[in-house]
């Protein structure tokens, strides 16, 4: 696990994660207060949860994928991955160690968002509180199924392209899956276009992992069958991305 420790040391030394940690700790409490919450104070807590998860998405897209892309780029251009290859660390193990080092730090950031959303916004009623906790856990699972493969992709693209290109491609894919598809759906509702319809079908529907509306409107936990279907769908996309990432990964540029 030397590559893991070396990469983790590199991430920790740069300390950029600390900015996001502070934002994740402070903004969920500050942002809802900037709204006209006095008209309905009961919305304050769901808004806090929504802010926490939204900030975690921003952290994933703005920090995590950037880390993956730059580390893939830096280590492959600096001969580090070739060095580990000569030590017998296979491509698969290299990818796993790089992924794990980024995710180790990100897990701490995700834990902050999860804790803020779950424990500082939990409803008082016992049944609602149970639903709240389960919804947050379901959200965490779906979030992981989207972000984890995208991180692998950003690392692999970083080893092949440069860091900026790898980051732009991965973040673009994530933003398209989260928001772009919504625009496409609106367009297709008014227009018949076979090609765009196919694009829509084969697009990664990452927006399915966004449970913010369930939290904001206290809709309760996702039915388990729906969760299973969504998790299987997102997991399937994850497997495809993993396969592509394995093909894209290079020890040296």
């Amino acid at each position, binding site marked *: 696990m030397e590559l893991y420790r070396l990469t983790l*040391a590199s991430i920790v030394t740069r300390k950029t994660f600390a900015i996001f940690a502070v934002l994740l700790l402070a903004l969920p409490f500050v942002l809802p207060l900037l709204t006209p919450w006095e008209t309905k104070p009961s919305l304050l807590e769901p808004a806090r949860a929504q802010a926490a998860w939204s900030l975690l998405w921003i952290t994933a897209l703005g920090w995590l994928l950037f880390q993956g892309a730059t580390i893939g780029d830096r280590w492959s251009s600096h001969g580090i991955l070739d060095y580990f290859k000569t030590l017998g660390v296979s491509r698969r193990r290299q990818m796993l160690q790089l992924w794990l080092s980024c995710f180790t730090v990100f897990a701490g950031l995700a834990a902050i968002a999860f804790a803020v959303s779950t424990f500082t916004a939990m409803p008082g009623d016992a049944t609602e509180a149970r639903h709240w906790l389960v919804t947050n856990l379901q959200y965490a699972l779906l979030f992981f199924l989207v972000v984890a493969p995208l991180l692998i992709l950003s690392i692999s693209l970083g080893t092949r392209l440069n860091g900026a290109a790898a980051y732009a491609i991965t973040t673009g894919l994530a933003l398209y899956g989260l928001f772009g598809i919504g625009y496409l759906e609106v367009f297709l509702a008014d227009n018949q276009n076979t090609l765009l319809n196919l694009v829509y079908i084969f697009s990664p529907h990452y927006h399915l992992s966004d449970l913010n509306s369930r939290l904001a409107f206290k809709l309760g936990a996702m039915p388990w069958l729906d969760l299973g279907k969504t998790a299987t769908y997102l997991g399937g996309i994850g497997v495809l991305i993993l396969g592509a990432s394995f093909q894209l990964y290079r020890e040296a540029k």
Partner: protein
Amino acid sequence: MNSTPPAPTVTLSEGLSIGYRSRRFGERGKGTDLASTDRPITLESGRHLLLARNGRGKTTLLKTIAGIIPSLAGNINCHGSVQFVDEDLRFDPELKPRRIFGAFFKNGEREFALRMAEDIELEVDKPYGKLSKGNRQKVGLIVAETRARRGGPHILLLDEPFSGLDFVARDKVDSVWRQREDEIVRLVCVHPDEPTLQAKSALLIRDGRLEQQQVDGSLDWVETKQSLN
């Protein structure tokens, strides 16, 4: 019962050819042959120099032995843990050498790395990016040497490890190398203009041929340089 550890060896087969395969469309499979062997070459424990003029395939040979790039023909057999320390190997410029050693090693190995750093005058608390070229070379050398302290046979492939080192540091690295000459094969790629180094043999690449020249103590440097021209 005492058992001596198995000796490390590198064997280059007869007909070994090193170089690059083209990646261009329509030229796939075609290779640029840089050097080949007429007879088998065996490197046993000890120090071996790799000498050639620029662009003749020194680094390519090291990368081929390390398994980073495939040979165009023939085989290479390595008996031992291989490490290839590229001249261009660079760590994160923000990391301090102490942290780098901490990531690679624990306990006794870490202490050895720090002791070696002190011996060869490396500042371990200065960020890697702010170190001079020679000091950056030292970090890679220390990592490789410390790993080679682990049990079992080792093969170190070092690409111009002395290019940025002053004579004092060279002498100190040399004395570290002398400590375990029998358990490690060190194939050291050096520029023909480098000062004389003690070695067991020298691999020379000239006119596209890779040859081994046995050396008794140190190489006749002037003669070798002339033969490379």
